[in-house]
């Protein structure tokens, strides 16, 4: 009797082509069919996967030795040809049937991929990029012959990877059905158990509505659900047939304050705002305690995390005092922009801010429109918003830089500090890990003091699972890889 594992998943993949999307949920499905040269462990170490080993030859050259005898689902062996083809597809403009891969930026300043021999490839960068290997796990290897045969458009709906599962059928909008790949090479030796997948079949069932997903789990229709709402935790815990699984997330939450205009162009007001929110209460009550409060935006698990930041304790008095110092003894009136999914948290926070004299009105926006508005804090005339930023690489470059470097793509607060910028730019090309870490820590300290944002928390990713699920732990990367999962 074939064992089958079903996942209640909140969104469908947009494509099955590993090189043609920038969607984390899509990647979560694709990862079960495609492996990359390197993988990440749950404690976020980078370990070999399709590569046997790698080495950095010079600051701009990396050499990877490939595992031998690894087969694609089609039966062809994976060789250096496939790796070069995969990386060329990612790097070269118009390499995918006239389209350019949207994942191009994930290979950084990669200039060329060279085949050394059948099982050896070399990556040559234009400039040093210390985190190159941290990004290698994001790029799954495709088969050259297969891709050339079917063409890029067909890659969207067909799959031929080296991963633990092969595609049976993708019912768009409904389900992705996978089947164990019997001659799987076993996966990364650093990620036990090694060997073929333990279940015969995996089905990702697409259930976008949260309540329905929980219901499906309760009904025994699925074994894992993602994005478990916090209010459902108690019920699942109480139910003998279900359990709750959590892992440290990689997505930090914070509230950008508009540093470019009053009242938040005054550091004291920003600090007051940080004192005004009772992060612990929100975490306890709304997030079921499954989050850690932050005094910055970087995860404690992350490389370069500064553990010695000043803590903004919850104190209405301090907040009021700071406000008064800043010339607002009667408080201030501000608006908080938020999109619907975070309405609850925003409203709770707004109430706290209001109690501390920062009278906050919440305004709900459609997510995209809000993002558009906050792209230009200098001119948008808004006060504050609610933002989160995720980075699976757990490196400051993926979160700290876009959010806090002057005018970077996620900098909604309009914060700009030449000193911070200098540190960040230097860290970007610094190959000495310790030095680099120190730079980031210093930058964090500055930002912590200047408080361009209200620092909030880093929630855990919460999953619901059936009691019969064995061997699977959620990954901090936020993907569901079911290689090791089993069911009773």
């Amino acid at each position, binding site marked *: 009797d074939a064992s089958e594992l079903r996942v209640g998943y909140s969104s469908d993949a947009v494509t099955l082509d590993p090189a043609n999307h920038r969607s984390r949920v899509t990647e979560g499905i694709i990862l079960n069919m495609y492996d990359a040269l390197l993988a990440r462990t749950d404690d976020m170490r980078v370990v070999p996967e399709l590569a046997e080993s790698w080495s950095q030859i010079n600051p701009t050259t990396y050499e990877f030795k490939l595992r031998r005898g690894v087969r694609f689902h089609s039966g062809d062996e994976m060789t250096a040809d496939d790796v070069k083809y995969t990386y060329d597809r990612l790097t070269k403009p118009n390499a995918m049937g006239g389209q350019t891969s949207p994942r191009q930026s994930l290979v950084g300043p990669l200039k060329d991929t060279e085949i050394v021999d059948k099982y050896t490839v070399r990556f040559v960068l234009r400039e040093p990029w210390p985190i190159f290997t941290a990004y290698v796990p994001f790029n799954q290897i495709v088969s050259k012959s297969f891709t050339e045969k079917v063409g890029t458009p067909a890659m969207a709906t067909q799959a031929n990877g080296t991963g633990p599962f092969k595609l049976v059928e993708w019912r768009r*909008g409904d389900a992705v*059905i996978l089947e164990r790949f019997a001659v799987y090479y076993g996966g990364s030796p650093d990620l036990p158990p090694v060997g073929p997948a333990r279940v015969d079949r995996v089905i990702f069932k697409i259930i976008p509505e949260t309540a329905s997903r929980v219901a499906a789990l309760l009904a025994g229709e699925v074994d894992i659900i993602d994005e478990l709402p916090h209010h459902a935790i108690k019920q699942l815990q109480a139910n003998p047939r279900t359990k709750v699984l959590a892992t440290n997330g990689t997505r930090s939450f914070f509230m950008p304050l508009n540093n470019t205009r009053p009242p938040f162009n005054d550091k004291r007001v920003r600090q007051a705002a940080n004192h005004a929110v009772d992060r612990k209460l929100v975490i306890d009550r709304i997030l079921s305690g499954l989050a850690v409060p932050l005094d910055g935006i970087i995860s404690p698990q992350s490389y370069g995390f500064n553990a010695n930041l000043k803590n903004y304790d919850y104190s209405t008095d301090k907040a009021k005092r700071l406000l008064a110092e800043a010339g607002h003894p009667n408080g201030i009136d501000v608006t908080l922009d938020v999109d619907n999914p975070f309405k609850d948290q925003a409203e709770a926070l707004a109430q706290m801010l209001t109690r501390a004299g920062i009278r906050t009105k919440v305004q709900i926006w459609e997510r995209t429109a809000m993002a*558009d508005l906050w792209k230009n804090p200098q001119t948008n005339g808004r006060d504050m918003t609610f933002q989160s930023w995720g980075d699976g690489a757990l490196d400051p470059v993926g979160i700290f830089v*876009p959010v806090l470097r002057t005018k970077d793509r996620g900098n909604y607060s309009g914060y700009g500090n030449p000193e911070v910028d200098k540190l960040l730019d230097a860290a970007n090309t610094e190959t000495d890990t310790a030095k680099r870490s120190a730079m980031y820590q210093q930058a964090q300290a500055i930002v912590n003091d200047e408080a361009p944002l209200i620092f909030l928390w880093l929630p855990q990713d919460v999953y619901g699972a059936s009691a019969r699920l064995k061997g699977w732990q959620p990954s901090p990367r936020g993907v569901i890889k079911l290689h090791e999962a089993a069911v009773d």
Partner: protein
Amino acid sequence: MTPLKLAERILQLVPVLLGIAVIAFVMMALTPGDPVEIMLGDARSTPEQRDALRHDMGLDRPPLERFFVFLGNALSGDFGLSFFHRRPVMDVILERVPATVELTLAALFIALATAIPLGVLAAVRRNGWLDRAATIGSLLGVSLPGFWFGILLIMLFAVHLQVLPVSGRIGFGQEVPPVTRLLLIDSLIAGRLDSFAAALRHLIMPALTLGLAMGAILMRVTRTAMVEALAQDYIVFAEAKGLSRARILGRHALKNALIPTVTVAAIETGSLLGGNMIVETVFGWPGLGRLVVEAIFARNYPLVQAAVLLYAATYVMLNFAADLLYTALNPRVRL
């Protein structure tokens, strides 16, 4: 007369479709948001790369030009590539059509199967208890939000009684060779009763959610029309001829009363064919509605435009079909 009328209909379709295309385009153009930013999210990207993507999507051209390019291509049946799926928009849309059609037909069936008998009975027993109960029922039907009712059904039938599945169209291993792509029919064609049962079980709750709401409206319409029909002289004359009650109600009155029912059913069916994103979301039904709504939020312009045009054309065709049905029901109506 009919070919002429058909030609006229098609001619009328032109300004309507054009108008809809314009509105859809203007609406999307005026909506803030940049598909490129949405696609890349917080993920690592460089300005050059964003510009390249923007160029890929044709977004670097002025809106007016984009509109005419879209129009020109659309005329030749090319609606472009969906931004996110990076596949032809029509492929992406058409994949979702069978599910939507199946759900719509099922809902229509449920609606008609409840509305017509109830409407007739309510009209015959005017102001009786059945009539009142049906009135209350239909008010419930129109005032209960679908997402709420849907989740209620799930709690009852899937979680508590565990007799029906929460989501999806059919289970694994129950697939049948696609012919019509309507699973109920295909499973019958394949002679697979287990598949048929599975497809049916998946279909019941979403179809009920939509069908009862639609049935509520149709019931009222049928009842009103039936009351109207029963007041006609031809009913008295039919009685004077000594016809049986069943014949009078079932043939003489009902055939005339069905006209407004058909009209409303056509309109409602039309809007269901556009996909009902709420029910699709709640029941994980892989239909059009969710796809289009997601596309709006993701500023997936080509998909939204193509879907809206497709919907409009369907809507017009449905109304035409309803008109044809009128002539069958009442020969007085001429096309």
